[in-house]
């Protein structure tokens, strides 16, 4: 029976944006609003949304890379204790920090060019564990083989590696502390398709072998469909829909999800393109629209949407599908078109 490993409740994050440099006035901009979700051990939860929707901020707040303004992240430790990850004391934080790791988007800027690959991969080991040199060498060699790097190249510097290999180095560095959760922030976006497929498969294999839980942040819906168990769709700092991957792609319950799905160009010249084109731009988070924040771009918006903020609520038979739309139950929305499919 898979267990809950992380519970995020009402997470909020505000950034202060300076409006007046002389009098040091600033206004708070809400980047995350009441984010609530849970994470089950061994699953992949993807977070999708446009740029500026707060996906990366969410990933960093969960990791405590950024301090959240309010809310809590309850982490179920390996010895079955529930700890408030955001308010740990120094000692505990050191103890549990290694359990949640991160892989960054750009493998070119995520690796220090002045450190050898061996130093990069072994650094988390040295800071988190008290190991002898020989043991460290052994572990680094093992992990390098696991991610498909040649252990004899460990004394080289990152510039000698290609983009795909660098991403493997970044994955090895995240894996070396044997984490239980890895936050992948656009981990495959900067890679070419043929290399991207290699890394996606690698992430899948590692998950099977070590039972790792992924929070997979991405804007690429085709990658998300390939890799996820559940998907959360974010719009302007809010989760607007959260459901299993099949429900999101076949049976979306939020107009924003529908529009996102229909925007993806299909690799099929015969596909009919009766796509929903959203008018306008992503609203400014500093000055969000009233009511439902999607209403200025929503083709189904009514007067109610302009004034009332919709609550996120469970719908459907098994109440596992969450949507923040007033008309989630009534609207008939289109999922991915399986009609004319290539091959």
């Amino acid at each position: 029976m898979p267990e809950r490993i992380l519970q995020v409740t009402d997470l909020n994050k505000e950034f202060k944006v300076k409006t007046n440099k002389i009098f040091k006035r600033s206004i708070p901009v809400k980047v995350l609003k009441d984010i609530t979700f849970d994470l089950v051990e061994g699953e992949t939860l993807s977070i999708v949304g446009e740029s500026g929707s707060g996906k990366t901020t969410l990933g960093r707040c969960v990791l405590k890379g950024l301090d959240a303004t309010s809310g809590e992240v309850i982490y179920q430790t390996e010895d079955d204790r529930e700890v408030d990850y955001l308010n740990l004391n120094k000692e505990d934080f050191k103890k549990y920090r290694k359990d949640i790791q991160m892989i960054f988007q750009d493998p070119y800027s995520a690796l220090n060019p002045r450190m050898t690959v061996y130093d990069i991969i072994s650094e988390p080991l040295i800071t988190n564990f008290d190991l002898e040199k020989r043991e460290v060498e052994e572990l680094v060699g093992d992990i390098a083989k696991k991610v498909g790097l040649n252990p004899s190249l460990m004394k080289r510097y990152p510039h000698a590696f290609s983009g795909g290999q660098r991403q493997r180095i970044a994955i090895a560095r995240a894996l070396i502390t044997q984490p239980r959760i890895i936050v992948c922030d656009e981990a495959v976006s900067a890679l070419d398709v043929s290399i991207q497929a290699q890394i996606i498969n690698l992430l899948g294999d590692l998950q099977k072998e070590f039972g790792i839980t992924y929070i997979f942040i991405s804007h690429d819906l085709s990658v998300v469909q390939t890799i996820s168990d559940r998907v959360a769709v974010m719009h302007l700092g809010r989760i607007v829909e959260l459901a299993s991957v099949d429900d999101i792609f076949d049976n979306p319950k939020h107009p924003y999800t529908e529009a996102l799905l229909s925007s993806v160009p299909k690799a099929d010249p015969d596909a009919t393109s009766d796509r929903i084109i959203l008018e306008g731009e992503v609203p400014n988070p500093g000055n969000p629209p009233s009511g439902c924040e999607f209403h200025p771009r929503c083709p189904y918006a009514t007067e109610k949407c302009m004034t009332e903020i919709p609550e996120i609520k469970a719908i459907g038979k098994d109440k596992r599908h969450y949507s923040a739309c007033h008309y989630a139950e009534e609207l008939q929305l289109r999922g991915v078109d399986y009609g004319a499919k290539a091959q």
Partner: protein
Amino acid sequence: MNVNNIKQQPEEKPLLSVKNLNIEIQMDNAVLNAVDGVSFNIEKGKTLGLVGESGCGKSLTSRSIMSLNPKECETTGEILYNSTIDKKMNNVNIVDLDPTGKKVRSIRGKKISMIFQEPMTALSPLYTIGNQIMEAILLHRTKNKKEAKKIALEMLRKVGISDEEKRFDQYPHEFSGGMRQRVVIAMALSCNPELLIADEPTTALDVTIQAQVMELMKSLQYEFGMAILLVTHDLGVIAEMCDEVAVMYLGKVVEKASVREIFYNPKHPYTKGLIKSMPKLGSEKKRLEPIEGTVPLAINMRNKCGFYDRCSERIAGVCDVKAVPDTQLSADHSVRCFLYSEYGEEEKNA
């Protein structure tokens, strides 16, 4: 094709014909064949897609058409440009022209214009949007500032920027990514080019904005009737926008066909691998089939197939010992692979 041949059938002449284009870059102790024997035609009003992974030479090829490559790139071959409007611009070989000369400047930005990948770096932060659009118009279309402003405002309206009078005097930082890309498109189309080169025009944009920009480009192509050379690595964008596709790998065009042939009847092992390795929306959750290995450097690759080390269908002793010829499979489908050429016969002749 020689000159006589072209004179006999003037209506058959493609707008742009690239023939055996080579770009070499001198490295410390080797020569990098960044683009190696690339040939393709762009017909009037049609869209040609150039696909490939990073480093395959697709951007260098497209920039050489504008003669914008840095000095280090030694370019040989032919890029024949046949203007349909300007009779003086017939059979002009862009490669032979002085990259800073008058003739190239009369083509660049006017007859052939370009949209770059990153809309923030393509616009100068120091000038207003209006000034930047007017620059090209004042150079090529009119000397009258008032008239130029009128044209610029009309272009802004055409690319879907509302409130254009106010937007005209704003700076690029006041625009969002999608809006900036619209401005770049307005700039590129302000002189009614015959050919638009779009180098990854939507890669930096969100899917929702990408959909808007693709729709815009299609409708403007319909309106102005220009040809488009679309350079991208996104097969989804290719499927949606293009009539013909050229797949590039390691500086060579490995397969060239109509868009339907590429997707439904791919021949080259690389094209097949590319289509298989791409996660597709609406397919079942299954393991992807990546192409193993990585792209090698294009050094000393002329006498073997560049894809040899990664190919699942390679023939040892054939693919790795000599240059691969181009095989014409049908009128609109050619492939550069020994699997489809009669290599046995060639060996006999040799």
